[in-house]
């Protein structure tokens, strides 16, 4: 029974792909994001940003009025399902390009597959080092942490920080990679590192690590982890008596409006470097935030903003390529020179974002991020 269903499904696939006439055919673009399971929040925000941009793109059309058909596949944060999704998008949906996947870990598995098939792949949230070294078809719009952290540390030093303790989640690639960058940047900036403590990204108790750090009295604590554990650390730090004398410095994971929602006043005073922030004074950003709120009745986060820009960058590349062909789209993508809600955007030779000039340092005030004065 099962085998027959599968056989029918397999046979039906090639037929489906060829059934429409060429002129009306939309341009196939794929995305792989985490839409189910415990990490779905990231994928859902990204999909929100992609869909919003897609509405605007398709209202105008590209390549002389053609629309983009975006197929978003779920990876459930599982390596195998992410690869299956990439293969399905390329082999069955015949996409010209892929956006995503969500996590750096997933990109390390998916990148080699898409690169082998010469399908341009654009990460919007993959900040670990080594991502774009997978191959010449792998791009990312997300600033690697190594561009953001030094800016944040500089701001911290300007406020008199000389000693620092580092805390990070040692079981996910994003947090570990962010920590490596943070440690190197702190050493380079001449900060003395008093302690390095780790935890699990699903932990809820950090009292042992915080108590130890408190006895060392560092000027600042650098945190590299996703927003959930960061919130937990902050809440517990306050109840263990950490006050204003200790500056909390977040990595990219702390840069989420959820920090204020979960940690509330405990997060006040935390600083974080960000390529984007919700209150940025620019016409296109204000329009984006308003449209996002209208469509989803919630605030966008940086993942949504990055995805929104990435979708537009991809559509622009396809339009400039003059044809929906992966090779041409790759070349056009490499020549991107656009301006989005994150600011002006170009790629380096290594297909990473060219400029970190747009990085602002934010500070948490009463549950919301504001630009650090």
């Amino acid at each position, binding site marked *: 029974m099962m085998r027959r269903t599968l056989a029918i499904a397999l046979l039906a696939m090639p037929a489906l792909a060829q059934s429409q006439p060429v002129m009306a055919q939309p341009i196939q673009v794929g995305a792989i994001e985490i839409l*189910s*399971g*415990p*990490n*779905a*929040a990231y994928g*859902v925000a990204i999909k929100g940003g992609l869909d919003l941009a897609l509405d605007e793109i398709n209202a105008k059309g590209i390549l002389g009025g053609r629309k983009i058909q975006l197929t978003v596949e779920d990876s459930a944060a599982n390596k195998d399902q992410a690869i299956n999704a990439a293969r399905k998008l390329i082999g069955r949906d015949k996409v010209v390009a892929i956006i995503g996947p969500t996590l750096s870990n997933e990109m390390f598995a998916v990148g080699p597959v898409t690169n082998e098939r010469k399908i341009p792949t654009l990460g919007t949230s993959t900040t670990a080092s080594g991502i774009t070294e997978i191959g010449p078809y792998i791009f990312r719009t997300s600033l690697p942490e190594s561009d953001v952290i030094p800016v944040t540390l500089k701001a911290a030093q300007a406020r008199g920080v000389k000693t620092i303790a580092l805390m990070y989640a*040692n079981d996910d690639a994003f947090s570990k990679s962010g920590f490596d960058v943070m440690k190197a940047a702190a050493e380079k900036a001449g900060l003395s590192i008093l302690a390095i*403590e*780790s*935890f*699990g990204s*699903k932990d*809820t*108790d950090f*009292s*042992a*690590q915080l*108590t*130890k750090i408190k*006895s060392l009295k560092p000027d600042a604590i650098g945190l590299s982890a996703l927003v*959930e554990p960061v*919130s*937990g650390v902050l*809440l*517990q730090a306050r*109840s*263990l*008596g950490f006050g204003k004398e200790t500056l909390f410095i977040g990595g990219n994971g702390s840069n989420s409006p*959820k920090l204020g*929602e*979960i*940690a*509330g*006043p405990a997060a006040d005073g935390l600083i974080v470097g960000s390529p984007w922030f919700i209150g940025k004074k620019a016409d296109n950003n204000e329009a984006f935030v308003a449209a996002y709120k209208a469509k989803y009745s919630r605030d966008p986060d940086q993942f949504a903003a990055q995805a929104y820009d990435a979708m537009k960058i991809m559509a622009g590349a396809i339009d400039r390529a003059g044809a929906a062909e992966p090779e041409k789209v790759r070349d056009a993508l490499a020549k991107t020179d656009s301006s989005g809600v994150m600011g002006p955007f170009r790629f380096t030779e290594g297909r990473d974002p060219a400029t970190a000039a747009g990085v602002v340092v934010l500070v948490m005030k009463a549950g919301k991020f504001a630009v650090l004065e």
Partner: protein
Amino acid sequence: MLAQQLVNGVLLGATYALFALGFTLMFGVLRVINLTYGFYFSAGAFLSLALTRQLGLGIWAALPLAAIGAGIMAVGIDWLLLTRLRRRATAELDSLMVTLGGVLALYSAMTAWLGPDIRRLPPGLVSADSFVIAGVRITTAQILILGATLLLVALLLALMRGTRLGLAIRAMAEKPDAAGLMGINTARASALVSFISGCLGGAGGVLIGLNFNAIHPYMGETMMLRGFVVIIVGGLGDIRGALIAGVALGVIEVLTAGYISSGLKEAVAFAILVAVLWTRPQGLFGRAVMRRA
């Protein structure tokens, strides 16, 4: 620093014990690995969230209501998944499997319905102040957890030792067939055990959600592994054992993280588990546990 670390350890251990109480009861009496237990923990936390946020109830009203709600769910799910398996020869494997499928469905349905985001109970539900006693800091929520854990342990022990119902449950844990022959309505007693376990799980979810300020659909799942360690080390169905093992685990984890390396925190818990299983597989505190419960 050592005093604060020991207090941290005891408080962390109290959360482990609180989670494990219902789990050990379910496991010890009903003799099945019921993986849905973690779900009642999450469900209790979400119920309290709805009760406090939507209906504006205080913690003293929301806590028992959420616990009872989780208990009712436990009875319903138990009935759906496990009743028809109890007669099978391979009940142990089958129930593991069916609750595995069940809990996967429950967690993902809950996530699809409520979203994967972390939420928190309304701030100010419990005072956020912390007290400083002899240089050691402790918060109201932590005192609440400690108190609730001790109170629940005392209540459970009283129920098991001092009532006819407790006697029936213990008889069932010992020899289910014989208990049935002696006129104990085992179906009703199992349902009651499910209910009590569900209530304990739900209450644990509320209190721990309150303490760590994080309520999300998979919160019960993340407690399960620690839960296993506690109930095995403490002895299946041994309520006092769960309390001691939970607190001991918390203290050891905190001391490892504080004085050796925070990277080893989790490994130590499992190393202890493996060591206990190799040397005293019946748990640290003896066997035939329900008889002494």
